[in-house]
């Protein structure tokens, strides 16, 4: 059961309250620093007492994250953060549970747990640091590395198609799915906050630069010259406008995407508008499929945001239901159930 004491003081936490005494040991310039900074900025805004936060991680560079937060933290084993977190949240739904993971951790060794977490819709915020490489083991390709990529373990190029994490999360039933990037702190903070506020499994993919083993993997989304044409910021209710001067729009013509001009003089009559709450799987899937496509911009923002019952709420409700049906558990009655007899 929740072991919390009633907190009567208004919460006035700051980012310092979440800073642990541990010096981060990521490489200088690593994208992880930015995610850490934005997380510390966002947590005080959630109105949740500090002791309720639990950060669970697996193995990998990203998974050191919990040590740097002054909250409850569990640094576990490779690929298994999602299951540990599921146990924590199911056992005590009162806690605010985060999973910090990477592309190898969540999608390779932990792939099975990742899809089942999404399917169950346990109220956990999962932040996937996607650097498209194995950092901690020093530079092998990961399940999100582009096909043909040359790495330490693929000197002649990889032969495998990459996973699309956003698509996987949606296909597996996550109720909140978003994407952001380490170099856009405002967007990153906004995405972390919205994911954390969502009730249900919230998945955020963060494009994270590994400046040691995969530097510049996401440069087209961060460099001034290319950013405009490659980044599509999805805004709820808005057309899919992008471009350096916000003068292009992405439209779906019923068969394929097209890009048209979006200026004062010339704009499509009825452009498609973003609706992450529609539950329209076809549209979600189409948008997310633009990820590895160079002809189109890559969408950032919220792909899906649906209100659905969480696993732990359903479980608690079922427990209450069975208590009503059978009466609260009486140990003597249970031990004596079945055919019993008395020996005098």
């Amino acid at each position: 059961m929740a072991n919390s004491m009633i907190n009567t003081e208004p919460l006035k936490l700051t980012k310092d309250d979440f800073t642990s005494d541990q010096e981060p040991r990521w490489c200088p310039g690593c994208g992880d620093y930015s995610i850490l900074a934005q997380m510390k900025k966002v947590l005080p805004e959630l109105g949740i007492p500090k002791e309720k936060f639990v950060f669970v991680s697996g193995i990998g560079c990203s998974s050191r994250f919990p040590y740097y937060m002054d909250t409850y933290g569990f640094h576990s084993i490779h690929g298994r953060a999602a299951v540990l977190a599921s146990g924590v949240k199911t056992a005590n739904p009162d806690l605010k549970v985060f999973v910090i993971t990477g592309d190898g951790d969540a999608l390779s060794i932990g792939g099975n747990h990742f899809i089942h977490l999404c399917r169950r819709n346990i109220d956990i915020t999962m932040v996937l640091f996607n650097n498209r490489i194995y950092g901690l083991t020093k530079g092998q390709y990961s399940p999100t590395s582009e096909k043909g990529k040359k790495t330490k373990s693929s000197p002649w190029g990889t032969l495998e198609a990459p996973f699309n994490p956003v698509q996987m999360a949606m296909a597996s039933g996550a109720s909140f799915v978003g994407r952001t990037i380490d170099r856009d702190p405002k967007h990153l903070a906004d995405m972390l906050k919205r994911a954390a506020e969502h009730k249900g499994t919230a998945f955020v993919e963060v494009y994270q630069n590994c400046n040691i083993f995969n530097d510049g993997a996401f440069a087209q989304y961060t460099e001034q010259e290319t950013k405009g044409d490659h980044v599509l910021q999805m805004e709820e209710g808005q057309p899919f406008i992008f471009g350096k001067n916000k003068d292009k729009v992405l439209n779906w013509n019923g068969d394929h995407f097209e890009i048209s001009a979006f200026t004062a003089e010339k704009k499509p009559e009825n452009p498609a508008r973003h609706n992450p709450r529609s539950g329209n799987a076809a549209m979600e899937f189409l948008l997310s499929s633009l990820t590895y496509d160079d002809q189109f911009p890559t969408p950032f923002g919220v792909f899906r945001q649906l209100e659905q019952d969480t696993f732990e709420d359903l479980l608690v409700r079922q427990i209450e239901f069975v208590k009503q049906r059978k009466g609260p558990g009486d140990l003597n009655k249970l031990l004596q159930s079945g055919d019993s007899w008395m020996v005098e």
Partner: protein
Amino acid sequence: MAKKETQKLERVTIRFAGDSGDGMQLTGGQFTNTTALAGSDLITLPDYPAEIRAPAGTLFGVSGFQIQFSSQPVHTPGDMPDVLVAMNPAALKVNLAALRHNGIIIINSDAFQVKNLKLAAYEENPLENDSLKGYQVFPVQITELTREALKDSSLSMKEKDRCKNFFALGMTYWMFSHSMETTESWIKDKFASKPDLIDANLKALNAGYSYALSTEIFTTSYEVAKAYKEPGMYRNITGNEAIALGLIAAAHKSGKELFLGSYPITPASDILHELSKHRNHNVKTFQAEDEIAGIGTALGAAYAGSLAVTTTSGPGMALKTEFMGLAVMTELPLVIVNIQRGGPSTGLPTKTEQADLLQAVYGRNGEAPIPVIAAASPADCFMATFEACEIAFRVNSPVILLSDGYIANGAEPWKIPTAESLPEIKVEYATNPENYEPYKRDPQTLSRLHVLPGTPGFEHHVGGLEKDDSGNVSYVPDNHDRMIRLREAKIQKLADVLPQPEIFGAKEGDLLIISWGSTYGTIYTALDEILNRKTNKKIGWIHLRWINPLPKNLADYVSKFKKVLVPEINLGQLIKIIRSEYLVDAKGFNKVRGLPLSTSDLINAIDEELKG
């Protein structure tokens, strides 16, 4: 009506055998409940194929259920049945060899037609030659007689034929002077929504009973007197049911919610099934996506403050190994239940074995000590489970509970404890947030002081990397050496508080038998017989409950006997520990046939040891 006599017997072993679709497990279960209510002591041994509905009539599709009952204490399901109920030729073929000389065979003669005989690889009908000489054979047209009894029923022919096991059960009820009441009320309850089936099964049961009563072929019925039992309330219980109840009891007595993370696997799934019924006891069962997630969710729940459990069998243990290491490293209370089955790999999923002992004691990377406790019988599973939970909380450690397929599915009468008679389980957490260090230890138990997430002021980190007392990662060589020794010492120190096993028989002398787990009943029965012969040899026996840590008194006993014998259902695992721990030239008695040890084989082995 023919005149019939009733003969008194002290002890009977009966085996029901038929197709896996014939309902033999159900028939055996009903016979067991009725026998228990009649006051006999008993033990059962279900023996069924891994296939759910193996092709009808085949040898490998034979499903059996054996029960020994007696007016005297019973500790095994019996080596050799006195009575065999064979529903088809394959059942006869598979089970005949085990039957006692001059034993009784009740046969469904309707099933002995060409097709079935061929499937059972009989060249001739054994009912028509003298291959069954030396047995008392009762061929009964069970299928025909069942159909006849149900001629007015609206059920289809196929459905009617499915009632024939109740006909056979009815016959055995007459034969052993049992009342039909328990089974009648079970039928009414079970088929409450299907009056046709209630009617048909009741009719078949009664028809079997009346047939045996009135036919000329059965001249004798038998009676087994009530066994002496300590006064109290009893019920029949299988090992798996006892584990489920033990867990719920421990949850009540520790004031914790029970969390089970589990993935279905034979023969452990019944624990998951049983626990999932009892949500009103605040039981949270979590059917995980795989074995790893089973233990992982449980460890998460342990961290968050539940009584956390994962249940599995050998292959699942292999998959959970890495998480066990994390549980050792983070020092969290977690009960890991292994219902051992035949291995390696998929092995013999529905058969029994004791070959996971070394895996339990040693099978992890690094120095990763885990206390290991083994249950001795179906009913003993209750207290073994309760103790495993107590110890997990006492030292904040994973604990492995070993059971096996035999005692998991086997049943025996269990004296039901009252909730009040069970000890409270103390669970302690750190209370002073000033300078809280997560890996600081209680000097008495060496247990670290855990704090549940959600407690203000105690925010801290745990994890799989080596830590110093403060919970910070530490690569300092001496710290690692110290931590490894502390984790080991914490487990070994438990030997100070765990009850020492009692020695049975001589306290010094010629032969010391050391055993563990489900062989308890066989060894008890074998020694009982040997000691009854008034041998002048001095034999002692210690049955281990905790195998890690070993009991403190064991070294002393080992030194007081000339020889040591370790019977196990493996190629010698406990013996390796005994030999290395006590430098003694112990001998093993090992059979790995997927079955409990046979009492007579064991008696021979003991006699052999005593000779030399």
